[in-house]
């Protein structure tokens, strides 16, 4: 298989370990005086956006940051719980850059680019250094050193954390760095602004059309380069662990302006989320993967067991992950854990009123920790209750906020009874196709963090999203953007009365007019929920050619219904959240169709993409490396028309193998 001539990944020559060092040392530079006249637009203010904007401004570029929330600090990176990976080997347990690289490629089921992943592992240590220097309060040991814990898909402890609020602390660190640049005048902050389109001139990205969400006015903004740091598209499923505002609009507009979309079907369904409680549900809440360090997952051995968890004796419990995967146990990767939960529930062993849940039980480890504490305190013959109380304190310190959140939502106390959990949409590995420089197929248009497709293959390992977002923003784009901008030093700022800007704004205006003019009978949420149901049932945890074919037809019909029967209340020139949602849902509908087409094209199972037709006798995902070891990069060719381009994935350092966590 050869890669499409339209895709040049620009992977540097040389041996894997030297590629980045050598490239970084030879990439073109922009001198400080020229940086001052080069303008960079950053859309999105999460980990990738804030870190990129702050770093580029520190280097001297003129930066404008856009976010739809009222402050950059609200971006959904804030909600990441468990931690951030780095190959520091502080635990002396044999970790290394190579091992992090290897785990990530394997965890991604051999569908990521080797060179990008190795670079990610190389800079992972710098991220921890930078964040500590900013004052991020990571968890520490009594000796004052940094603490680590384990995450799924690895056998070392390389995850750094701040209680169950690691994303919050990392984002506030990046936000601080960003606000420092705003205060110095190096960054212009445009909060409560949403990107409505990319403006291209002579094939290059030259700016964006934005809508001020307070006044409703459309604006034109020029940039020598545009960085999309706009996160993932999990909300295409309506119910997900994403924030309500997370959307694909920026990435989708870029796609329609020529940026290829990579592996859109790769969706991560996270195994440990609080189950759905009713049809009023607006979002799902994650219970961090870190809980799988100390929580054991089980279901009753007996079908439809009506007893309370506590009343089911040990020998009548099926710790199915420990049974099926003894080497990794409860810490298998997310896709494997999710499918195993679905398998048990589908077979009739689920728990709770809906029977679509499994137990996550802390009792055994609470007792184990309690015994360790009792030993430390030199208590002789403590009672079982005393041991449990000591153990409960340890668990509370590690996961207190998660336990509180669980209790608040379910009205059940997880210290007294096991949590009930079920998989939910959490992350999207797919995204805009980018080369080694993080540039999309549109020159000058970049995608960073979850918005790009690059590092996680078909399944992301836990605590790697924070790592990738910050790697892209702090340590990759500051170097790689020079390759493009060094050629742009002669380009003067283009006035926004240029016809390309005028035309792009007119198109956005036309779409707004259209949305208001329909005056239909159904709300935006009605369509969003309908789309979510199709996607979850037919393009969710298990997919089949039949289901996907049906889904494509259903989505095309839904699109017609949306554009003839949606009701958008209010006016354009005001704060109008229904109009915001209408734009986003319209784009989600189009994306949903492409996701199904991509899933239908990929006649294999890999990572989070599980095609029922392609599985082993034991129900494991069965890859087809001969025919599908490629990135599917889709080009937009008009309504419901997408052309597939393939980037061959070459594995020169890792031998392709069936993933084995048993």
């Amino acid at each position, binding site marked *: 298989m050869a890669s499409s001539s339209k895709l040049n990944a620009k992977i540097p020559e040389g041996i894997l370990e030297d590629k980045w060092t050598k490239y970084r040392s030879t990439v073109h530079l922009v001198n400080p005086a020229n940086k001052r006249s080069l303008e960079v637009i950053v859309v999105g203010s999460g980990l990738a956006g804030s*870190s990129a904007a*702050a*770093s580029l401004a520190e280097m001297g570029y003129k930066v404008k940051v856009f976010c739809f929330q*009222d*402050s950059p*600090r*609200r971006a*959904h990176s*804030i*909600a990441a719980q468990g931690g951030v990976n780095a190959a*520091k080997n502080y635990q002396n347990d044999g970790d290394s850059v190579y091992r992090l690289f290897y785990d990530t490629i394997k965890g991604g089921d051999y569908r990521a680019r080797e060179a990008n992943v190795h670079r990610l592992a190389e800079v992972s*240590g*710098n991220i*921890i*250094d*930078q964040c*500590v*220097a*900013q*004052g991020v*309060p990571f*968890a*520490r040991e*009594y*000796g*004052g*050193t940094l603490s680590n814990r384990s995450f799924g898909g690895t056998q070392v402890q390389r995850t750094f954390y*701040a*209680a169950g609020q690691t994303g*919050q*602390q990392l984002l*506030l660190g990046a936000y*601080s*760095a960003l*606000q*420092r640049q*705003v*205060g110095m005048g190096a960054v212009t902050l445009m*909060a409560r602004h949403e990107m409505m389109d990319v403006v291209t001139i002579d094939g290059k990205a030259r700016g964006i059309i934005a809508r001020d969400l*307070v006044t409703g006015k459309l604006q034109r903004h020029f940039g020598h380069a545009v960085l999309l740091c706009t996160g993932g598209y999990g909300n295409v499923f309506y119910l997900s662990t994403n*924030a*309500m*505002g997370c959307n694909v609009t920026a990435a989708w507009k870029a796609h329609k302006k020529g940026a290829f979309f990579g592996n859109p079907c790769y969706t991560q369904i996270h195994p440990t989320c609080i189950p759905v*409680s*009713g*049809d*009023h*549900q*607006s979002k799902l809440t*994650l219970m961090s993967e870190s809980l799988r360090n100390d929580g054991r997952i089980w279901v009753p051995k007996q079908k439809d067991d009506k007893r309370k968890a506590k009343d089911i004796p040990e020998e009548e419990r099926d710790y199915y992950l420990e049974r099926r995967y003894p080497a990794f146990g409860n810490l298998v990767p997310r896709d494997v854990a999710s499918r195993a939960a679905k398998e048990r529930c589908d077979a009739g062993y689920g728990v709770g009123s809906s029977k679509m849940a499994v137990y996550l039980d802390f009792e055994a480890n609470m007792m184990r920790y309690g015994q360790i504490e009792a030993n430390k305190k030199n208590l002789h013959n403590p009672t079982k209750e005393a041991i449990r109380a000591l153990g409960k304190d340890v668990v509370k310190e590690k996961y207190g906020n998660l336990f509180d*959140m669980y209790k*608040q939502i379910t009205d059940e106390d997880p210290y007294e009874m096991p949590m009930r959990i079920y998989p939910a949409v959490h992350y999207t590995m797919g995204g805009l196709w980018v080369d080694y420089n993080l540039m999309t197929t549109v020159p000058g248009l970049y995608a960073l963090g979850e918005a790009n497709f690059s590092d996680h293959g078909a399944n992301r390992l836990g605590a790697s999203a924070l790592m990738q977002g910050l790697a892209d923003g702090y340590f990759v784009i*500051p170097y790689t953007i020079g390759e493009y901008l060094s050629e742009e030093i002669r380009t003067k700022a283009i006035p926004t009365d240029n016809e390309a800007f005028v035309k792009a704004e007119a198109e956005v205006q036309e779409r707004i007019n259209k949305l208001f003019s329909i005056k239909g*009978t159904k709300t935006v*949420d009605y369509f969003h929920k309908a789309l979510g149901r199709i996607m979850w049932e037919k393009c969710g945890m298990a997919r089949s050619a039949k289901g996907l074919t049906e889904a494509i037809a259903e989505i095309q019909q839904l699109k017609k219904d949306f554009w003839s029967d949606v*009701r958008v*209340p209010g006016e354009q020139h*005001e*704060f109008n*959240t229904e109009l915001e949602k209408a734009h986003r849902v319209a784009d989600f509908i189009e994306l949903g169709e492409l996701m199904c087409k991509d899933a239908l094209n990929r006649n294999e199972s890999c990572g989070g993409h599980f095609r029922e037709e392609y599985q082993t006798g034991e129900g494991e995902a069965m890859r087809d490396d001969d025919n599908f070891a490629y990135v599917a990069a889709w080009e937009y060719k008009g309504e419901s028309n997408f052309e597939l381009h393939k980037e061959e994935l070459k594995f020169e350092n890792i031998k392709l193998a069936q993933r084995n966590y048993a």
Partner: protein
Amino acid sequence: MSHGNMNLTLKVWKQKNKDSKGRFETYDAKGISPDMSFLEMFDVVNEQLISTGKEPIAFDHDCREGICGMCSMYINGRPHGPKGGITTCQLHMRSFNNGDTIVVEPWRGAAFPVIKDLAVDRSSFDRIMSAGGFVSVNTGNAKDANNILIPKDDADTAFDAAACIGCGACVAACKNSSAMLFVSAKVSQLSLLPQGKIEKQERVLNMVKQMDEEGFGNCTNTGACEAECPKSISLENIARMNREYVGASFTQNKK
């Protein structure tokens, strides 16, 4: 579409924009389930309003898991409602009774102008952060992370202060609309850590100056901020900031 058996009356603040005058409007919330969150109850009401050709109620929200700090409703006279230690999005309808009348207002405060209905402008917080809420370390300057050893207790106390979500409930709760809890949480986090000590004097002076310029009131040690904070940020932070401020003022004057 019915979800549950609770029927409630809402009295909600409606205001077109920052320049117009607001008023309370009464809405019926019917068929509410006790398992719904407070915001999901608003979703149901808004769906009904849109379906009947009326305008929905505007409110801020995003993560719906209590961490982004965007949701901001003043419910029955208390920021984030009747329960302690949670945000509006984490409040569930089981905390109310069938037949209740619930009064919902936006945050009030000169430095938090209303944008529409229940949504307010909190960009003043961002500007306070720009004045000094950071450590001046450019990307690439850092040394190996374990070269800085930090006693666990200091790291834990700094983390407790850093847990602030910037929602503004402290300001909304305060009779003076003071932002002291918010500002002191960031000042405390950074002054407790060796990385932040170098700039601690400039930081506290600049952040307090910006806080005053934004129009936030003074602190009279009432403690409503701490009581209403969804993340239980401690008043001790205000004490620490006052000490830092006094110290910095004396030292700076001598320079």
